[in-house]
Each structure stands twice: as C-alpha cells, then as structure tokens.
C-alpha cells in the first residue's frame, strides 16, 4: 500500500496545500503575536521576560517533534526499504535544525535576565546542543556522501543512535538538579500554566507548525524534483 504513495499522485496535493497554508498563515500569525505580546500578562516572578517563552518553547517542541518523526521514519525505512521515507527525512532535517538552534538562542536570551548568564553547563541545554549536532551530522552525511543508498543507510543509523538523546532532553529537568525550570505541560495531561499564557503558547505552536509544514512541503517538492532530474534518462 505504501508503495502506491507515488510522487505523481501527491505532487498536485502538495501545491494545493502550500496555497492553503499561505492563505491562512498571516492572519493566524497576527492573532498569535497580539496574544503573545499585548494580551498575555507578565509573569509574577519573571515579569515581561516570560514572553520569550512564546518563541522558545514552541521552537524546542518542533525541534524535538521533527527528530522523533525522523527516528520513526528511519526505523521504518530500515524495515520496509521505502525510499520515500529518506526523502521525507531529508526535507524535515533542516526544519528540525533551525528550530533547535532557535530554541538554544532564545533560551540563552531568556537565561541572561532570569539566571544572570547566557549559557550554563545545564543538562537540558547540553542535551539540546547534542540534538543540534545530530541534526548537523545527518545533513552533512547526506550532503557529502554521493552514493544515495549508502548515505541513506548511514544517516538513518545516525538518527537511530541520536534518538537516545530524546528521552534525556525530555526528562533532564526531572532527573538532574538543573537551572532550567521543570515542565509546565506534562505528557500525562497535567498543565501547570494559566490559561492566559497557555492560549498564546498554543497559538504560537500552531504558527510554528504551519510554518514547518510549509517549509517541509517546499523542501519535499525540491527533493522529488532532484530525484526526477537524476533519473530523467531512465524514463
């Protein structure tokens, strides 16, 4: 069934999806920014610096989500030998790298007024840096190894090895005493954040997800064209 998921059938859908996301993106972005910058209240302890959360937290979530998807696709790629999964991974990796870097940079900008330092040897920070290096390694392997099937295998192995880091990032604030605050939204559904801050946070997450989908679709389309260009003589 998965093999029937041919490039020809989805190309038209991709173009339609890109147009749809383009049409709803800016209104949602404007509403989210109004909530995040104007309507949400300052924190009783951190004051207005808490607004950095509205870019920092969704960036980190998207960075982690991208890696988790890449891990699942790498495992499936090994089991089912579907080339499409490698193409999808190649399209997701730059998005994950971007948002991981943004989470680190905005985290540093939040850390300076809150902790008094730009960067600390903290478990959460270091594990996010490790995630960034795994993304970089994946991208570099695909860029510099010319043999496609070999680079796909090696990069998938790298992603699978790097997945050990995902639970470490998630639970680092529980396992170790860190400067980084504990999770406000837990997997079991416990939410320790007020609605006035939760709404802008979720709206900004939606903005980041829409943006990621847009970039993914354009990258995926580019990757398909690259494959078609390589195989043009075989057609």
């Amino acid at each position, binding site marked *: 069934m998965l093999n029937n998921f041919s490039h020809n059938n989805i190309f*038209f859908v991709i173009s339609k999806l890109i147009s749809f996301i383009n049409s709803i993106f800016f209104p949602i972005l404007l509403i989210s920014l109004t909530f995040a910058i104007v309507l949400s209240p300052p924190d009783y302890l951190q004051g207005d610096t808490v607004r950095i959360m509205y870019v920092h937290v969704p960036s980190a979530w998207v960075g982690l989500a991208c890696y988790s998807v890449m891990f699942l696709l790498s495992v499936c790629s090994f089991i089912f030998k579907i080339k499409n999964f490698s193409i999808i991974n190649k399209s997701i990796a730059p998005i994950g790298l971007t948002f991981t870097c943004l989470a680190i940079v905005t985290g540093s900008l939040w850390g300076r007024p809150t902790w008094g330092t730009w960067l600390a040897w903290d478990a959460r920070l270091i594990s996010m840096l490790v995630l960034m290096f795994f993304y970089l390694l994946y991208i570099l392997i695909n860029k510099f190894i010319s043999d496609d099937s070999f680079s796909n295998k090696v990069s998938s192995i790298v992603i699978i090895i790097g997945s050990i880091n995902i639970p470490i990032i998630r639970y680092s604030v529980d396992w170790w005493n860190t400067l980084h605050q504990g999770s406000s939204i837990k997997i079991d559904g416990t939410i320790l954040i007020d609605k006035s801050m939760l709404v802008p946070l979720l709206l900004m997450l939606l903005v980041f997800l829409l943006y990621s989908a*847009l970039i993914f679709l354009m990258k995926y389309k580019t990757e398909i*064209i690259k494959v078609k260009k390589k195989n043009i003589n075989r057609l």
Partner: protein
Amino acid sequence: MISEIITMNGYGLYVWLSFGITFLICAIIFFYTKKTLKKYERELATEINKLPSETRIKVLEKSKLINQILVSQKKII
C-alpha cells in the same frame, strides 16, 4: 501602553531580540527554500526542453510529475 510594549519594563532588548531573531531566521529560510525550489523546477524544465522531441514526448507520457512541473513553469514565465 505602546511605550510599555516597546520597553517591556526594561526587558525589551531580550524579548524583542528573541522574537526578531526567530522571525528573521524563519523569513530567510522561507525565501531560500522557495528560491531553491524554483531553481530546480527551472533546471528540470530546461533539461526536458533540451531533449530530442521524440524522447521528450516519451518522458512526458511516462511522468505526470514532469508534466505538472512544466505547467507550473509556464505559469511562472
């Protein structure tokens, strides 16, 4: 109220820098990705047009995707 939003009670530099860097990087990546996509679409269209007419017809018959790319290229031009 506007000055409060700009200064963010003394934390304006950190807050605006965070938002600014995030949206600037996102904008740069968006335009770069779009430019790369258009470049590859153009290159593929050029390669198809270079093929001898018989081969080109065969390629177009076999690949719906290439047909769609050529159509989108005509829209751009």
